[in-house]
């Protein structure tokens, strides 16, 4: 069940909050686990079985690794670790990439073979990565294995993060499983984050989706420059609002139940370089690849050639992680090339460019990347990119392009401003102003109900969108 669905917001979540408050401390993890299993079962009962198997396998593997680490049998530990990773990765490959692999192999050897894989289980890209994180952390000694199977199950299956992350590293969550504070501040800030995330996802991404869908429905051969850019901008912003909104909801939920998860997005469209962009976009995925792929391969403390190889592996995998399609591979390579360019060629040069210009350039490069990302195939992407620079198609502007641009320009401007750090900076300034004018306590006393009221209005807006757009679903859930 998506977190932005009416059933989740209006039935599951209030029930979960109330039950959680009524349950004594020692039973709370069990309750959360039960709720999580119900949450997964709601989508499909067969997913529960798969996830239960995954939990059982990784629980015992982690315990074994913990034991081997203490007993200093390095080779055996490595063997167990690698087979553990292989099982998780194998599961991911089977469900997500098998058909893609077979089709490509068939295309190369020139035969045909049809094969159907069962439906991709919910959150498989996310929970297998969580499991691998656990095995690596335990093997390395960064964290001890969790003895209580219920706690471990909760790490993998917690409903806030199972569908679409963030991919919380084991070492960041393990201790919180048994020792977390339930403060009013945490609950309140969690709730706020949840509502803000929900409105980013259902209102902003919903409205932007209309613009993008309108352009995507056109034949790419007949697009104009204005149309192609409107579509690309709308998609870039929609993806941001959709995914960062969803992450905010997940992190907010974590807080409501006492967990602190690091932020997953940090105003990525204000980045001043591509390197900066990847520190701010889907932070948990970047961190995962850094800690469990890049650094184990040697990271940057190796020769330049080896470093480039390491980066290539990371970006090929990052691309593929987003889906079984060549477009994602190309998108990964595109980002790899930009990062290599920044790291090895433009190092000093970039610093001399004013940061506003750099931010605009970075945004533009990201938008160009997303056009490949949303294309169904390479041919579409090529055609679309040519339209963006005015080669072929309907020239600079045609009626279709102008129709969507004219209708969407206000929305796009709002969305761009909303994606920068300006709104939060403005709120911060207002806060400080209030504190200066009236004393701090009174300001807080006044602001709390006012904020709550504004958020309640936002919540009503979200409800309207959730009811009227029953069909729209989460973009990132497909990855």
């Amino acid at each position, binding site marked *: *069940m998506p977190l932005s669905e009416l059933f989740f917001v*209006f039935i599951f979540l*209030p029930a979960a909050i*109330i039950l959680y408050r009524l349950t004594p401390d020692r039973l*709370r993890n069990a309750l959360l686990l039960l709720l999580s299993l119900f949450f997964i079962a709601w989508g499909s009962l067969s997913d529960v079985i798969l996830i239960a198997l995954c939990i059982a396998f990784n629980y015992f593997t982690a315990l074994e690794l913990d034991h081997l680490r203490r007993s200093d049998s390095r080779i055996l530990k490595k063997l167990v670790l690698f087979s553990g990773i292989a099982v998780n990765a194998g599961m991911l490959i089977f469900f997500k990439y098998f058909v893609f692999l077979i089709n490509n192999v068939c295309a190369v050897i020139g035969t045909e073979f049809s094969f159907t894989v069962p439906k991709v289980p919910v959150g498989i890209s996310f929970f297998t990565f969580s499991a691998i994180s656990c095995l690596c952390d335990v093997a390395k000694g960064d964290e001890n294995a969790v003895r209580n199977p219920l706690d471990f199950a909760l790490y993998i299956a917690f409903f806030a993060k199972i569908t679409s992350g963030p991919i919380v590293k084991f070492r960041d969550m393990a201790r919180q499983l048994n020792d977390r504070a339930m403060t009013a*501040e945490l609950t309140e800030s969690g709730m706020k984050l949840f509502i803000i995330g929900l409105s980013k996802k259902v209102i902003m991404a919903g409205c932007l989706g209309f613009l993008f869908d309108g352009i995507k429905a056109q034949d790419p051969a007949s697009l104009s420059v204005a149309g192609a850019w409107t579509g690309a901008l709308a998609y870039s912003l929609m993806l941001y609002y959709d995914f960062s909104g969803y992450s905010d909801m997940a992190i907010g939920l974590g807080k409501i139940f006492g967990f602190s998860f690091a932020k997953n997005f940090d105003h990525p469209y204000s980045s001043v370089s591509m390197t900066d962009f990847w520190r701010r976009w889907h932070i948990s995925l970047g961190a995962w690849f850094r800690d469990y792929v890049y650094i184990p391969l040697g990271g940057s403390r190796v020769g330049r050639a080896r470093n480039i190889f390491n980066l290539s592996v990371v970006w090929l995998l990052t691309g593929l992680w987003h889906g079984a399609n060549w477009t994602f591979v190309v998108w990964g390579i595109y980002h790899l090339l930009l990062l290599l360019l920044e790291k090895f060629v433009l190092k000093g040069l970039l610093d001399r460019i004013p940061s506003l210009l750099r931010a605009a350039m970075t945004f533009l490069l990201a938008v160009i990347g997303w056009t490949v990302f949303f294309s169904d195939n390479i041919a579409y992407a090529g055609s679309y990119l040519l339209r963006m620079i005015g080669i072929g198609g309907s020239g600079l502007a045609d009626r279709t392009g102008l129709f969507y641009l*004219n209708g969407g320009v206000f929305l796009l401007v709002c969305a761009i401003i909303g994606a920068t750090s300006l709104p939060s900076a403005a709120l911060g300034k207002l806060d400080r102003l209030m504190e200066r004018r009236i004393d701090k306590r009174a300001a807080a006393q006044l602001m709390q109900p006012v904020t*709550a009221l504004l958020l309640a209005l936002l919540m009503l807006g979200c409800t309207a969108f959730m009811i*009227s757009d029953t069909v729209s679903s989460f973009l990132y859930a497909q990855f």
Partner: protein
Amino acid sequence: MKDNHQSKKTLLWTTCMFLCIVICFDIVSLIIPDRQFSETENRMLAGPPEITGEGLIDGGFGEDTAKYLSDQFAYRDTWASMSFFVRHTIFHQNEMNGVYIGSDGYLMLIPSEYDPDALRQKLDAVNLVAKKYIHVNQCISVIPNAAAIMRNKLPEYARKSGQIQKIREINDSLHGIKTCDVSGTFRQHRDEELYYHTDHIWTTYGAYLAFREIAPMLHIDPDSFSYTIQRVSESFDGTLASKSGCHQYKDVIEIYAPKKETPVSVHYSEIDGMKGTIYESSFLSTKDQYAVFLGGNHPMVTIRTTAGTDRTLLLIKDSYANCFVQFLLPYFDQIILIDPRYCFDTVDMIITQNDVTDLLYLYNADTFMTDTSLTDFLTFSSSQDEE
């Protein structure tokens, strides 16, 4: 894990507000009885989900519950208007679900794509029938849709329909059949109420203007009868309103009853018995108020009158013709309405069995260009005869 929210100054304002909102709406939704049909959306609403083994395993049960909850949520229509407000008024979205949100409350169907080959086949079929029944006075009028006429009411940069040109091409490729293009007249009158704001259908006034243009083809004088105009509804909320979710305008429905009353008997092919009028006022209290004319679309409607002209008109049509028929009543002894979308008879059978003297095709351009049932209705019989 400690609950120490009493000790801190932070109070659970947002959390309490959230819980209040969701629980209140849950309770109200639970209390309000389930609706089976939504008049605003013009569709059946989901009922309580059924629990089946399969549904539980593949997630179907969850999906059904989500639909049920959304469809039966308290004040569903108000929520929908609210999201319409955000999308249209705040963020200027001018197109919803295939409908343009025009100015002055006009909703206009975005012209559908059509298959040129299928259209050519249809025109060939019309030509064939024209050649075959040379003694029957045959005419056709393809009526442009609102988006082609009221271009000034369309959102800025809305797609050009090209319909006026297309209608000209259609008329040019027909032979042995009289054609009537009302586009010019409609353009002159485009600032009057030719089409409903909330539906794709023309108003009775639009139909009347067209009638005056078509009349000479049928050898009738449109001025020989005058009409009493009656306003029968001021609350018509058409199908485009349902499709787009924009319910800001309510339309007026008028009927033009000839001042000199012609007694009629109306027979609907799928209903037993006769009716003494073409107006079905019971529909005025339902969602489908346009069905006040002939009770909506039927496969075949036979109207007998006491006009005493010895003429029988075969009217092959879509829903545009439903409000057009009232103008024809004083001129024909018998009018047979065929809607090929629902009728499985053949044109030959109907013409020969009923001694048809006149034949009129009356369609709106969108249906004429996209619907293929007319071709089947015309060619199926012709080719069978040839065999």
